[in-house]
């Protein structure tokens, strides 16, 4: 929408993956809600979002403390892998329950000649983290190098 300079594609991706984790996994599979992995990704996301929205708010007000910018482009180094681990462990924990209950799955024969195996789908999702996570992670590392060194240069000229 043009209010903040993030990529629409990357952000939609992140929003979709979070909505999926919350509703399609954690909410749908009650047995998984007491897992430590849920705590892990909730903490990671919460800290990330507090920093990120502070960053956007201060940027829009044209008064961005260096600490916030630093935090945004540094803490992800730990928070991101933390979040991903929590997400993957949660999905993995949900698998046996999904298989047992046949959750969100439909098998043949049926009158629309269609089938869907949610268990297999979740495994595919887990596999997709392998190509996607490094790309997003290294994109942030690259952004970090660009933005934090830029600030250094500006400081030199003051």
């Amino acid at each position, binding site marked *: 929408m043009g209010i903040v300079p993030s990529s629409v594609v990357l952000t939609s991706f992140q929003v979709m993956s979070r909505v999926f984790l919350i509703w399609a996994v954690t909410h749908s599979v009650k047995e998984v809600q007491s897992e430590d992995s849920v705590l892990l990704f909730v903490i990671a996301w919460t800290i990330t979002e507090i920093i990120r929205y502070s960053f956007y708010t201060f940027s829009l007000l044209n008064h961005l403390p260096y600490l916030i910018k630093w935090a945004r482009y540094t803490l992800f180094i730990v928070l991101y892998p933390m979040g991903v681990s929590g997400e993957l462990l949660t999905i993995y924990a949900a698998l046996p329950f999904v298989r047992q209950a046949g959750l969100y799955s439909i098998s*043949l*024969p*049926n*009158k*629309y*000649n*269609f*089938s869907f195996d949610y268990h297999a789908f979740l495994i595919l999702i887990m596999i997709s983290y392998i190509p996607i996570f490094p790309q997003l992670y290294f994109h942030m590392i690259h952004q970090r190098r660009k933005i934090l060194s830029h600030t250094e240069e500006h400081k030199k000229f003051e």
Partner: protein
Amino acid sequence: SKHPDPFHTLREVEILDAKIREKLCFLDKVEPHATIAEIKNLFTKTQGKSLKDEDVLQKLPVGTTATLYFRDLGAQISWVTVFLTEYAGPLFIYLLFYFRVPFIYGHKYDFTSSRHTVVHLACICHSFHYVKRLLETLFVHRFSHGTMPLRNIFKNCTYYWGFAAWMAYYINHPLYTPPTYGAQQVKLALAIFVICQLGNFSIHMALRDLRPAGSKTRKIPYPTKNPFTWLFLLVSCPNYTYEVGSWIGFAIMTQCLPVALFSLVGFTQMTIWAKGKHRSYLKEFRDYPPLRMPIIPFLL
């Protein structure tokens, strides 16, 4: 003797990039009373759309020194090659499922045949559709562009081949369920399919006849004596309209959700193309028929 009048001699204007100080454009024969807006216009005209092979140097809006900008489009592949590959795949893949070659369904089903008539009909329709497309690619279509980016063939083949396998898997499955309304539904859907295939072919022929062999001229398509082409009265791209219709027919005939999804995705893509084509018709021809919509009469 005549004194040169400084207020009326044409000027030369050189435009440089502010950051890298490189010459971007050289305009000679600029009117001295031209505004900056007009100069900007002259500049953007020289930077705009790609030139065509047929363009003549003299007719281009450049000065006595023409600067041509080269843009590398990357690895290219011919349209014909892409079309043939992306259409041959589904034809072949569907048949693998139809004949139930080993390792697709359980071993007790290897090389067995479905007992439902509609499954045999579906194979004929699907195969006919792709054979028609292959023949049209070889003998009917006249392409404006020779090539497209190489990465397109991977993208397109994944789409066509993937969906073909997905559809074929269910239609030819031993546990396939025939349509709820039986033979009536199949007959109606088959009629829709056949009519739309004929329609689609008629449009392709009409479009071909618009453009003489080897030329790249563009004209407004109009209805001909063939009733199938009368859809031109209502839409710019009736070939897409008929194509969507064919797949809807096939979906109803097989009552298979993946086919419906394929139709939906195809419809979305063709609508985007039709809107683009419609827009460029409107831009190119002042007298373009106002009643026409891009793909769906009166609606879209």
